[in-house]
Structures are given as C-alpha cells and as structure tokens.
C-alpha cells in the first residue's frame, strides 16, 4: 500500500516550474534610425546588440514589408555583437511618408529547463519617402520658464516633399486672453528634398505675467501654409498658500498642515512657515520644518501646535511663508475645540473593566484547581 501511495504521488506529481537559470536581458542600439529615401541609394547602419546573457545565443533578422532591402552580416552570435545592416533602396517606393521595418534580436531560450522565459528587442528603421509635390514636417519647441527671463524658442522644418521650397515662418506668442505679446520673424530659406533647418530665437519674458501662453508658428512654404501651436507656462518666484488646518483639538498637541504651491519653474529650497495663533492676549507660535519644492510642485508643510493651554474658540491665524529671501503672508481663522475627555473616559472605563474581568477569571481558575489539603 505504501509503495502504491508513493507511486501515485510520483505519477500525479506535476512540476510547474517557470524557471530560467538566470535573468533574461537584451538590448539594441540605436533603437530608432531614420533614413531619407533616394533612388538606388545604399546605406550601412551599425547596430549594437548589448547585454545579452552570457552563453545565450542571439538570433538577428529583419522584419517587415521593407526587410527585403536589408542585409545583415551577422545573424547568430553569443554574448552580444556589433552588426552591419546594409540597406539597398529600390529605384522607387510607392508609399510616401515614413516606411518602417525592424531589425530583431531574439534570445534563444535554454533547452534544459521546464518552462523558460526569453526576451526579444527590435530596432526600428524608418525610410522617409518624399511626398509628391510640396510637403513639410515641423516641430515647435518652447519650454516652460519664468518671467523676466530668456526662453529659447526653436522651430524645426523638414522638407519631406519632392519639390524644392522656400520656407518663411513667423512665430507669435499669445497670452491666455489671446493677446499677442511677441512676434518673431525670420529670413526665408530654401530647402531641397529631405533637407531641414532650425529657426531659433530667445523670447524675452520681461514684463510678462505668470500664466499659460501659446506659441503659434505659421509656416509659409512656396504658396502653402502650415500652422503648429505649443503651450508653455511662465512661472513667478512666488509660493502660494492653498489650504491649512482649520480645526484643532484643545488639551493636546495637534498636527498643523499647510498646503503650498510653487509657482516657479525651478526648484525652491528651504521653504518653511512661521505660524502664529492669537486670541486676546494669548499667542501661540511655532515653525514648520523646512522643505525643498520642485518646479510647480504642491506640497504639504507639517508643524505641531501645543494646544494644551488653548481654550475653545476662534483664534486669529497668521502664516508667514518664507522662501528664497521672500515671504508670502496669509491670515485666517482657526477653531480650537474642547478636548475629547468623554472619549478618554470611555476608553479608560473599558480597559478597567477588562482588567477586572481577567483578574477575576484568574482568581477563580486558581481557586478551582487548588488541591484540597490531605487530612492527617
């Protein structure tokens, strides 16, 4: 019977182990490459397959509709490798715009484990085929910044059409009310097929107010027009107080929280608040620990107020928020409530009853189990 049981155990044992001897990792670089189409052009790309697990075979192949134009010099190797991908473009390609294919590097899983895991990574190669006639792509980049500062404005224009074009852009800056605050004009340039150029200027934000703005680029190119927009923010070195603790319990130490917001586009270090609570001749003051705030961050500053001697009622609250040599002032009302003695009595009473019951039970148990004295 025992042998049958053992046999049954073995027969019914199922090992479900998804196990790999060691971590599976694989990288490929560059992961993204763009190539401009020219009839019958030949391009050689260098791609590195990196961080392959030692001893794990890697296979490389091209994938996608345009993989037929790619030749890879190394298709199987161990421990990573640098490979050359030769792309021979045809005389023409019918689909204008970006045409993607991939170079795939794939681990081969080990053969001697129950269930293995493996990774594969792909590098994307984009062949940009010009559109017939006039066609551009454009990128507008305006980072957020601060008032009274200089912000770099950059417009990139790429000619993805078959015709040579003259490009004449204008960039205009609008505030959130739609008013134009700045207009940037540039000298026109000529771009042949696949050529690109940048239009750069600094935006002087002196006199600007904190808030949201829109940069609008209107690009005229040989009778055609393209418009792109981008929003950005201008900050001001000012930290606002958004909210604060409004109710405190008398008779104990309370947490006092102040929610603040950094309106600056940079980090502000060492932000702290001095808080004062006053009623009549009584004043209670404390300072919060300082905190560093990231750009545009909202954060809660926490201090502690000793309300043991504070009577119930409304107190005038003054907050002086200190940061970077500046100060934000805010005043309000904080209400101090009666201490919750009733709750404390209840808790104390319950504890006393439980302790009494335990002592009683213990005495009863001991008395019951006490052996009677033997009579001599």
């Amino acid at each position, binding site marked *: 019977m025992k042998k049958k049981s053992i046999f049954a*155990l073995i*027969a*019914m*044992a*199922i*090992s*479900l*182990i*998804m*196990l*790999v001897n*060691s*971590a*599976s*990792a*694989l*990288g*490929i*670089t*560059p*992961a*993204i490459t763009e190539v401009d189409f020219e009839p019958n052009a030949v391009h050689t790309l260098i791609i590195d397959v*990196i*961080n392959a697990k030692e001893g794990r075979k890697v296979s490389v192949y091209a994938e996608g509709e345009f993989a037929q134009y790619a030749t890879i010099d190394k298709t199987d190797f161990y421990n990573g490798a640098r490979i050359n991908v030769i792309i021979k473009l045809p005389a023409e390609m019918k689909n204008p715009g970006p045409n993607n294919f*991939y170079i*795939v590097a*794939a681990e081969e*899983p080990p053969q001697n*484990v*129950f*269930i*293995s*895991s*493996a*990774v*594969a*990574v*792909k*590098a*994307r190669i984009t062949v940009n085929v010009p559109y017939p006639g006039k066609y551009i792509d454009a990128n507008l980049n305006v980072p957020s910044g601060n008032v009274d500062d200089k912000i770099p404005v950059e417009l990139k224009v790429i000619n993805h059409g078959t015709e040579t074009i003259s490009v004449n852009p204008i960039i205009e800056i609008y505030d959130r009310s739609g008013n134009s605050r700045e207009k940037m004009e540039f000298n026109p340039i000529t771009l042949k097929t696949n050529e690109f150029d940048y239009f750069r200027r600094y935006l002087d934000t002196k006199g600007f107010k904190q808030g949201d703005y829109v940069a609008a680029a209107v690009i005229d190119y040989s009778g055609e027009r393209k418009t792109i927009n981008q929003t950005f923010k201008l900050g001001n070195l000012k930290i606002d107080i958004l909210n604060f603790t409004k109710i405190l319990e008398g008779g104990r130490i309370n947490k006092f929280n102040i929610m603040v917001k950094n309106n600056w586009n940079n980090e502000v270090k060492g932000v702290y608040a001095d808080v004062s609570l006053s009623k009549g001749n009584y004043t209670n003051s404390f300072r919060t620990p300082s905190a560093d705030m990231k750009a545009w961050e909202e954060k809660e500053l926490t201090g502690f107020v000793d309300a043991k001697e504070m009577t119930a009622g409304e107190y005038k609250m003054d907050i002086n928020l200190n940061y970077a040599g500046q100060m934000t002032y805010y005043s309000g009302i904080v209400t101090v409530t009666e201490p919750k003695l009733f709750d404390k009595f209840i808790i104390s009473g319950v504890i006393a009853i439980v302790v009494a019951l335990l002592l009683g039970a213990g005495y009863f148990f001991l008395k019951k189990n006490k052996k009677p004295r033997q009579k001599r």
Partner: protein
Amino acid sequence: MTENDSVLVIAVFAVIASLAAAGFSYYAMSEGPKVSGFLSNTDTGTASLTVESVLEIEFTDDTVAFGSGRVATGQASATLYTNGTIVNGNWTAESTGLVLENKGNVNASTLTLSATKTAATLLGGTSPQYNWKVSSADSACTSAISSYTAVNSSAVACNQFGYLDSADTLRIDFELVVPMDSLKGALSDTITATAAP
C-alpha cells in the same frame, strides 16, 4: 664744427625723421584699411551632440516555481495563482509572478507576449486553464490584458511601456487550472517578451 654742434645737427635730423615717419604713418592709417581688436562682424558656430536610443528589457524576476504537487483527493481540479493562492492542491505558493523592466532610454511603443503552448497542450485533461494577466504598479503601461486571459501565441501586453525609473516595470501573473486527469511529469513552455520602439 665742434662736437656739440655735431650732436645738435644729428638731433635735428632725428627730429625731422621722426616727424616725417609720423606723417607717413598718419597718412597710411587714414587711407588704408583700419585694423583693430574690435570684432565688427558676427558669425555663428554650431555644437551638436547625438544621444543614441537604446531599447533594453530584462526579466528581473524570471522565476515562478510551484514545485511538485497534486490535486487534492476528491477534487476535480486545482487552481494555482502567482499571487500566493493555491486551491485544492499542495503545490508551493508563488507570490511574485514574472517581472519585466524597461532598462533602456526609450519607450517601447509595443510590448508583445507570446507562449508556445495553450492550456490543452501544456496541461491537458478535462477543462484545463492556462491564463495570464499584466499589471503595472508604477504605471509603466496600461495593459490590454488587465484580467486573466487565455495564454496564446501572441498578445499585445501594452502600448507605451515606459523607461523612466519611476515607471518602467510590469508584472505578469498566471492562473493555472490543473485537472485531475492532466498530463503528468515535467511540463514546459516558453514565455517571450518582445519590445519594439
């Protein structure tokens, strides 16, 4: 002519020569091109830097080990999860699943998972199940397989698998229903994660 007279004559000639030289210099400066240390034209230079894109993924937790076990006596099947739950079986609990991390510097616009087997070919028997789901505690991706779905040969786990350290990890959990009449012995499968930029 005394010696003093000679010196006087030489001095006079020296003064005349100096005045003449000064005059020639002035004339040359007034008529010829002027050269100074002040840059009167501006020119621009360019500085460029290329940062290569790297796509790299790694199974940082590549082991799900249930060990050996069997369906409890009298039960039609046992269910095993990678969240630490075993129902009607005595396998070792597994609580972490597989964990995949994007260690490169670009997002994977597509992450695909594939397996070589299904429930029928991995476990066999009556009504087996072999399911997976994908989750991301740090919001590295919003998965299309957010609830247990049958494992298959190719499924898009998520679009936009992030690379920032604060959001670059996802977890693959499994649900296995092992019937009483399942296949026995060592069973195997391969889970492959494929990332594309």
